[in-house]
């Protein structure tokens, strides 16, 4: 096992899959650019050339259809969106066609396309370049939606996606690219619908999606100093969702905080809260809390951006109020984005 950064793990996963399967190709705006989508497509481009790693015109909607059509006859496209917000332009193809393809056509064919979308939060990316669209896509049966926060999970989920038969939306938070972790050299698949227990604890369960899994882990460090033992879960994929692991944890701790990179209303955090209400009601010792961005579009100004996004401190604070610990947070731990200064 060696340590790789998140972007390196993605790159390695793609390259290994492409070596094994000649039907895989990567396409999207800027995949052959000198920056290679935060480095994630550089090696594949170098190794497999312009036939299998190619730039496309600006045509998100049409190209989604193009990818589906090529998948229908045997290709395995990886489509990259430098911001997942651009997938709104492809929403019809993704939701009305990709998600429904298998079922609507009687299950005889499938369109296994991997759609990678990058969440660009930080440095004032603002209203249309820092949203996280996972909850929206997860609403629709037929798509898999993954939100890896750690390098090995990113690689493992890509491996699974590129061997499976389901169209997958994989969101990568830009703040994760520089994070390091142990990554197996081999292709070790990570199953969809299997959560990861990042830390075991007794007093409260924190479920964090995407970057919030990482931030929840840091929040649990703060909580430990306050004498609170938090169990931290990373769902890794939000559809399918590992209901069993979440429910078991909440039954054990009796308390739940859900942290998400997207809004509370109708989102991932609401789903997990509903799960606790349905399956762990008798075990809950306190109301469930959601820690999410505030209920407005993402602002640009630094002071507003800081107030907008959840951070380890806000997660920890929410947990403290749930366990009704006397301790109030003294130090404030900034979010991981504070270090970000570009490039975009």
């Amino acid at each position: 096992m060696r340590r790789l950064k998140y972007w390196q793990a993605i790159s390695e996963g793609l390259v290994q899959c492409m070596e094994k399967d000649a039907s895989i190709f990567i396409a999207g705006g800027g995949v052959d650019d000198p920056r290679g989508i935060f480095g994630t497509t550089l090696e594949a481009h170098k190794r497999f050339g312009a036939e299998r790693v190619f730039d496309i015109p600006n045509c998100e909607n049409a190209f989604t259809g193009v990818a589906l059509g090529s998948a229908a006859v045997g290709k395995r496209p990886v489509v990259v969106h430098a911001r997942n917000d651009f997938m709104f332009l492809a929403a019809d193809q993704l939701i009305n066609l990709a998600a429904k393809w298998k079922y609507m056509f009687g299950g005889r064919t499938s369109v296994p396309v991997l759609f990678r979308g990058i969440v660009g939060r930080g440095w004032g990316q603002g209203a249309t370049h820092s949203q996280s669209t996972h909850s929206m896509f997860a609403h629709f049966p037929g798509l898999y939606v993954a939100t890896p926060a750690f390098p090995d999970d990113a690689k493992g989920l890509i491996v699974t996606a590129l061997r499976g038969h389901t169209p997958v939306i994989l969101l990568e938070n830009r703040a994760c690219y520089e994070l390091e972790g142990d990554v197996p050299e081999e292709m070790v698949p990570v199953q969809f619908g299997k959560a990861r227990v990042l830390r075991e604890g007794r007093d409260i369960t924190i479920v964090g999606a995407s970057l919030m899994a990482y931030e929840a882990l840091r929040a649990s460090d703060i909580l430990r100093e306050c004498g609170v033992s938090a169990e931290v879960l990373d769902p890794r994929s939000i559809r399918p969702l590992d209901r069993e692991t979440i429910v078991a944890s909440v039954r054990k701790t009796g308390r739940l905080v859900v942290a998400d990179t997207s809004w509370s209303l109708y989102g991932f955090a609401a789903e997990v809260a509903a799960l606790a209400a349905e399956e762990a009601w008798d075990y809950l010792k306190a109301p469930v809390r959601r820690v999410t961005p505030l209920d407005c579009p993402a602002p640009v100004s630094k002071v507003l951006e800081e107030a907008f996004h959840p951070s380890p401190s806000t997660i920890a604070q929410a947990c403290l109020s749930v366990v009704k610990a006397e301790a109030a947070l003294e130090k404030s731990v900034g979010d991981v984005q504070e270090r970000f200064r570009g490039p975009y």
Partner: protein
Amino acid sequence: MTTVSNDQLVAMLRAMMRIRCSEESLAKRYPEGEMRTPTHFSIGQEAMAVGVCAALKQDDVIYSGHRCHAHYLAQGGSLLGMVGELYGREIGCARGRGGSVHLNSPEVGVMASAAIMGETIAVAVGSAMAFAMDRSPRVAVTFFGDGCVEEGIFHESLNFAVVKKLPVLFVCENNFYSVNSPLRLRQPPDLAIHTRATSYGLPAQQVDGNDVVAVYEAATTAVHHLRAGNGPYFLEGLTYRWREHVGPLFDTDQGVRSQRELDFWMEQCPIKRASARAQASGACTELDLRRWWKEFGQEIDAVVEQVRNSPFPKPENILDGTY
């Protein structure tokens, strides 16, 4: 063909100089890290903005995309509002909520700029439709890059505007790149954008986008066509962005755009060309030019100073304006 008076030439030259001077100054300050907003500089492309807006009236409306600084300033958006927005201050034209890519100033007709490609092409068509419904002589303009021509919304919008005969001017600033992707790899290389636009059934013209007089004359013809109720018009201007796609730096060391190409286009600097023309026709002197650079330099310095001393938005008001 209209002829441009010395006064008009000087006004356009000064407008371009003011935009250039402001953006150069902001680019220089950008690495200080106080403007925390991805910024797409218009440096090198000022003639399109200034030439088109000079042909408009104050009650006409314009729309732009992510590279909106020049359009906003050319149509009369306040420098304070723009700089305030880049510095994330409450005094910004979007109250620090929108950032560099969302400049707007409805009081002078800068209705919206948007960072999702092609969005505002359709929106301009909508404003034009409203003007047509009201039998108003007002017109709508939409500025966009060559990259937007590839989006479906571009084609849907042109078709709609032609079918409904709407007073909208489509202005494509063709700078040959979409981020680092060259135009020739994204669109049919031997079929110019304006040529393809004509296939929708509207007059379309290509101009030298670094010649502010040529742009102004073409825009004037176009706006007459619009106000006469003859339907939409399409202008393609050939131009070049000097800096990297987003950010203040030059990018010729990145292996995409060559120094030779940049040098060629810097030779074609719209301000240099308009200055030479203005001096040749006696509209201004070398001394005037130096005075104006100084004037605009002092203006932007003062505005930056004012902005930096002005308050940030209050976090407790973060939800303001959502509804």
